[in-house]
């Protein structure tokens, strides 16, 4: 059996290379199919890996608390919120917290003015710890300091996109911008980060948390987001349980009520993103793999032609003693080899294509090819080869030796 397999492979190789151009054209369908599958997978997986890295840079022991209103309540006009008093509560009562960063988004129109220029931007208040959390670096000036927050200084740090939109000078430090009728001094300009998946990361205005609260006036109605990072020893499960019971108490929720907030670990966030990306990979990959099917039909077509063309050779082989399985195996292995070769070439092209795509789109993470996609692509093309090789191979094996020998 092994001997026959080896000899059939040898014969198949000879035949494939004897018709170099035709073999190449035959396998082109598989090449394109595998290349597109690999390109799609490598780009989306690169994105996924990038997101994974981003979240792990947040630290695996960080938590985000947000208010959460079920849809039903939203329709009744009820809105859950996290308030600065929740923040104080957590600061005072929770254990194992290394740093705590509140984020308060502007709830009115996020307009920024400078001179005659007006721009819309993402405006939020936070504390000095945000710089570490978001891994922001300064191009000019400084970030929000702790004292800015404590004394509610009217200062802002802006992103490069905002500076551009407002036609601020190259170094905007000490200029004044107007937000909601208040004048704030620019103390720092952030280093540009570029685009991430189509979102500009430099279109933001950051002010001290307490300044934001005072500008917003009605403090009781503000809804904040709280980011926590935990100390090394702290157990993320214990802390989030403690936080849950603290907040449930503070919000006066009885045993039956659902939480009106969510505590998300960075891992959970990452999983959410991952599952979205995996879904995209599967859907797009599935569509693209239809081309593999088409490629397989191409192989079947050429193999059938090849069987007809070689009818006489098959007859000779049968006359000198080839059994059914010898012929069957030779053609089947030929189809299998063709599609595997196509798969390998497609793999290389797909990898190059994936890298090309991710490097030509600015801010796109580099492509990565997971091992499973290589195995899948080769496995699938092999499967296609066998599937579409069976018909021609069976046709060849079932030829009657006399008829085959007479065939011209």
């Amino acid at each position, binding site marked *: 059996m092994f*001997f*026959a397999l080896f*000899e059939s492979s040898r014969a198949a190789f*000879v*035949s494939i290379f*004897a018709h170099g151009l035709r073999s190449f054209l035959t396998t082109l369908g598989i090449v394109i199919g595998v290349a597109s599958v690999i390109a799609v997978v490598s780009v989306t997986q690169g994105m996924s890996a990038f997101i994974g890295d981003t979240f792990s840079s947040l630290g695996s022991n960080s938590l985000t608390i947000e208010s959460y209103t079920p849809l039903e309540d939203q329709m009744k006009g009820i809105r859950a919120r996290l308030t600065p008093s929740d923040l104080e509560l957590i600061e005072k009562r929770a254990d194992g917290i290394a740093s705590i960063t509140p984020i308060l988004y502007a709830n009115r129109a996020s307009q920024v003015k400078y001179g005659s220029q007006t721009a819309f931007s993402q405006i939020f208040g936070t504390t000095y710890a945000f710089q570490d959390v978001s891994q922001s670096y300064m191009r000019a000036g400084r970030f929000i300091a702790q004292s800015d927050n404590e004394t509610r200084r009217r200062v802002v740090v802006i992103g490069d996109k905002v500076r551009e939109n407002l036609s601020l000078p190259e170094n905007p430090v000490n200029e004044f911008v107007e937000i909601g009728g208040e004048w704030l001094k620019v103390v720092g300009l952030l280093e540009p980060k570029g685009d991430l998946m189509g979102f500009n990361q430099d279109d933001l205005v950051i002010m001290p948390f307490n300044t934001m609260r005072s500008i917003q006036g009605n403090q009781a109605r503000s809804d904040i987001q709280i980011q926590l990072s935990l100390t090394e020893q702290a157990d993320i499960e214990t802390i989030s349980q403690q936080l849950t019971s603290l907040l449930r108490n503070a919000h006066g929720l009885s045993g039956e009520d659902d939480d009106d907030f969510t505590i998300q670990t960075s891992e959970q966030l990452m999983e959410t993103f991952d599952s979205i990306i995996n879904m995209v990979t599967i859907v797009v990959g599935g569509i693209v793999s239809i081309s593999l099917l088409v490629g397989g039909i191409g192989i079947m077509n050429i193999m059938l032609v090849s069987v007809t063309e070689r009818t*006489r*050779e098959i*007859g*000779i*082989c*049968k*006359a*000198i*003693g*080839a*059994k*059914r*399985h*010898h012929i069957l195996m030779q053609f089947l292995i030929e189809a299998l080899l063709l599609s595997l070769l196509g798969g390998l070439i497609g793999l290389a092209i797909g990898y190059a294509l994936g890298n090309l795509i991710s490097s030509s789109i600015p801010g796109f993470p580099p492509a990565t090819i997971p091992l499973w996609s290589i195995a899948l692509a080769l496995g699938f093309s092999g499967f296609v080869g066998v599937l579409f090789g069976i018909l021609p191979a069976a046709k060849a094996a079932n030829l009657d*030796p*006399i008829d085959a*020998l007479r065939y011209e």
Partner: protein
Amino acid sequence: MALIELTQVTKYYEMGNQVVRALDGIDIAVGVNDYMAFIGSSGSGKSTMLNILGCLDKPTSGQYHLNGKNVETLDQNQLSEIRNLEIGFIFQSFNLLPRSTALANVMQPLIYRAVGYRERKKRALEALARVGLSDRVDHLPNQLSGGQRQRVAIARALVTKPSILLADEPTGNLDSKTTVEIMALFDELHSEGQTLIVVTHEDEIAQHCHRVVEMKDGSIANDSGPSSNQSQPEASR
């Protein structure tokens, strides 16, 4: 016992609603080291005869014993095996694999016998040397002359050391000089003990053979009798 024994062998083909009797009740026996020729005009049934003798085809009725084995009971794969072990074919149009070298062509039948590469090559080179083609082993069939191609085909038939060598118009595509060479080779093989059966319509070829069977309309019209060293009863009608 005879090497080949045919008893009341018939072969009918259906063409439309007409039945063609290609072979009509053949009784014949061929002994070891026979050197015989089937002659006859086209349509006399000699090609059908050869196909049946070569186990390429099965008779419609009657019995065919080859080396004591009843061929009738064998399936396609077993017939392949018989062809590989017992029979060496030589065709009018050589029937070499066009993309394989002379050596690879001669090695081919041994593949189906699962002989390893080194042993295959050794035996194939021996067979090629036997037909005088040692200097052409790496040539493709289209780089060889007709006579050389037929020698390769003979080497391919010999490499399996078959019980019978079956030649179908072996010199039909060759000029007279190479015909003489090929027939000389056949004579030599016969003198070494090889059993040969040749199908031909040329009298000069038949003259080389020690036994000539003439076929007509699917029957044996004339049989010159078993070769000298055989004592089989004459089978004719």
